C-alpha cells in the first residue's frame, strides 16, 4: 500500500499547533509508517509539492505570503484542514483587526516603539518581508476548508483522532469536549 502524502503549513500562528503535533510522541513513529511528510516547517522542503492527500494548515492568513501559499495548498491538496484556532477563526493572530490600518501597527512596532531596533520600516517592495493584508482572515475565508480542528493548540489527542480519520478517508468526528475553542 502506498503511503499517504501529508503536508503541514505554518501561516500566521505561533507554531504551537506544530509543537502539539510533536507531542504525539511515539505515535509519530507509527504515523511515519503510514505517511510521507512531503512538506512541513519541520522538513526541509522549499516548494509546496503537487498531489498532496492531506494538508494541515496552522495559522491565519495575515500577509501576502500566507495568501499565496494557502491558494497553492488548496490547488495541490485533496483535503485541507484548518489546524488550530488561528486557521479556524483568526484567534490571536486576528486580534489586530479591530485596530485598523496595519500600516500604523507596523510603524508602531518597527519605528515608534521604545523597543525598536533600527527605526526603519520593513519594505515589502524588496521582497524580503511580505506586505500585511488589511485584515487577518481565517483560512475558510480564502479557500474551501474540508475539516476544522479547533484548539489553541489542539491537543495531541485531538490531532491523532483527526489524522486517523482523515487517513481512513473519513471526516473527523470530534466529541464535544474535543472540539472546543481555546
Amino acid at each position, binding site marked *: 500500500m502506498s503511503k499517504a502524502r501529508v503536508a503541514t503549513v505554518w501561516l500566521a500562528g505561533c507554531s504551537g499547533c506544530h509543537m502539539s503535533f510533536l507531542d504525539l510522541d511515539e505515535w509519530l513513529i507509527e504515523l511515519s509508517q503510514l505517511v510521507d511528510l512531503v512538506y512541513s516547517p519541520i522538513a526541509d522542503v522549499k516548494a509546496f509539492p503537487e498531489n498532496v492527500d492531506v494538508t494541515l494548515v496552522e495559522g491565519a492568513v495575515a500577509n501576502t505570503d500566507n*495568501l499565496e501559499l494557502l491558494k497553492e495548498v488548496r490547488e495541490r491538496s485533496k483535503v485541507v484542514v484548518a489546524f488550530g484556532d488561528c486557521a479556524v477563526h483568526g484567534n490571536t493572530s486576528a486580534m489586530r483587526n479591530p485596530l485598523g490600518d496595519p500600516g500604523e501597527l507596523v510603524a508602531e512596532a518597527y519605528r515608534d516603539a521604545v523597543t525598536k531596533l533600527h527605526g526603519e520600516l520593513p519594505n515589502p517592495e524588496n521582497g524580503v518581508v511580505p506586505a500585511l*493584508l*488589511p*485584515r487577518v482572515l481565517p483560512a475558510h*475565508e480564502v*479557500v474551501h476548508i474540508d475539516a476544522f480542528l479547533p484548539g489553541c493548540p489542539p491537543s495531541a489527542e485531538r490531532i491523532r483522532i483527526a489524522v486517523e480519520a482523515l487517513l481512513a478517508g473519513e471526516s473527523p468526528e470530534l466529541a464535544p469536549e474535543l472540539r472546543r475553542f481555546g
Partner: protein
Amino acid sequence: MSNGVDLFDLSQKEREAQAAYRRHVLCCGSTACLSGGAQATQDAIEAEIKERGLEQDVRVVATGCMGLCSRGPLVKVRTRGEDDVLYADVDADAGRRIVDEHVADGQPVADGQLSLQHPFFARQERVVLENMGEIDPNRIEEYIARGGYRALRDAVTTMTPAGVIEVVQRSGLRGRGGGGYPAGTKWGLLAKAQSDHKTVIANGDEGDPGAYMDRTVMEDDPHRVLEGMALAAYATGAKHGYIYVRAEYPVAVRRLEQAIRQAKRHKLLGKGLFGTEFEFNVEIRIGAGAFVCGEETALMASIMGQRGTPVLRPPYPTERGLWGEPSMINNVETLANVPTILRRGAEWFASIGTDTSRGTKVFALAGKLENTGLIEVPMGITLREIVEEIGGGVAGGKAFKAAQTGGPSGGCIPIKHIDTSMDYDSLLALGSIMGSGGLIVMDEDVAMPEVARFFMRFCMDESCGKCLPCRAGTFEMYELLDAICEGRATAANLARLETLCDVVRTDSLCGLGQTAPNPVLSTLHYFRDEYEARVVPDTVAAAVAADAGGASAHERSA
C-alpha cells in the same frame, strides 16, 4: 360649551363665516410643499391680495396635504358657484399671477393648471384624508364645521360603549400599522379588561423609509386623531390616552399640542364630556428616533421612560401594558378612520374595499413614477391601477420592474403580479405585506440585491440589539448582501444568506427582526438570477475580500 347644541352652533357659525367670502385660495401648507417653497408662495399671494384690497372678499388658507407632492407647491382656488381650480408648481411669481388673473379678474390662469378629473385625484377615495387640503389644521372650528366631533358627541350621548365596539367590529376595520389585526376585536379585549387605569395609545412612530401617512394625518387633521382616540377610550373604558410621535415630526407635535389645547377649551377633552360622566385626557410622548419604538411593547417602554426595547408577549398590552395596566395601541391611521365610520355607519365603510380588507388605505406613493405623493384608495384596487393611472406610469418612459410595499418589513411585487389586488391577504400571499402604507415603485434600472441591501442596512441600524438573531443576524445579512452587491461573494455566501433569513425570521423576539429578512426573501424569490449573476468563484472572492474587506475594517474603525 359642553353639549351638542353648542357644537352645532360652532359649526354653523364657522360655515357662515366661510360662506361670506366669495373666493378661497387654499395653499397647501404640508411639509412636502413647504420644503418646495410653499411659504413664499403663500406670502406672495397674501401680499398681492392685500395690495389689491381684496381681503374682505377672498380668504387665504394654509391647508394640509393635497396629495400630489411631486408637483408642489399646490394652490387651489375655490369660487362660490364654480368648480375648484388646482394649480401645480406654484412659485411666488405664479402665485401673484393667480391673484392678478384668477382671483381678481375671474380668469383662470392657463399655465400650471391640473385637472381635478385627473386620475390621480379621480381614482382616490378619501376617508382618512377627507379634510386634507380643505381645512386649516390650526383651527378646531374648521374641523367641527366639516362634521368633526359629532361622532364622539353622538356616541357618548346616545350609544353604549359596547355599541361603539360593535360598529367598529361590523365595519371590518383592521389595524393600519402593518399587522392588520381587527380593530373591533382589539377594542373588545381592552373593554373586557378590569382596571380603573386603562390607556389608549395612538402609535405615530411612523418610521418606514419614504412613508408619511401618519405624519400627514397628525399634522393636517390633528383633531381627527383626538376624536378617534376619544371614541376608543369611550368604547373601552379608558380615561387616559397617549399619542406617541417621533421627534422627527416637530410640526405634528406642535399641531397636536395645539389641538389638545383647543379640544380642552371646547370641553371635547377633559372631565364630564357632553354632560356625561365620560372623561378622557390625552398627552403627547415624543420618541427619540428609534424605529423599533413603533413595536408596541418597545413603544410602551419608551413612554414609561425606559430604553425602547421590545419585551416578550404574552402578556399582551390589553392584559398588561403601561405600568402594568391594560393598554391598547392603535395606529394613527386606524384611529383616524373611526370618526368617519361612526358618522357614516359600519355598512357604508364595509362597502368599500374587499371582503377581508374593508375600507381604504393611505399610501405614500414614491419612486420612479410621473406622479408621487400621498394617496388614499379603496382596498382591492390593483397595483396596476395605482402605478399606471394614479401614478401616471413609470417616469421617463422606463419599464416597471417591481413595487415595494411594507417598507423594510415588506417585500417586492414584480411585473407579473402587477394586477394583484392591494389588500392584506393578497399581498401576504405574494410574500409582501400591506405594512403601514409605504409604496415604492422601481423601474428597470434598479438592481434588486441593492434594494435588499438598502433595507437590510436600515434594519441593521434600527435593530435595538436586545435579541441575538436580529442584532447579529441583520448585521451579518447586511455584510453578505454588501459582498454580493460588490462582487466578492461566493455561492456559499449566498446559501449562508438564505440560512440566516430563516433563522432571523424564525427566532427573533419582535416583529422588526421577524420581518427583517422579507425584502431579501422576496427579491430572492422573484429575482434570484440577479443574485446569482453577482456570485463569484472562491478564489476571486478571496482576493477581493483580502483587499476590500480590510479596507472596510479600516473605514469602520476610523
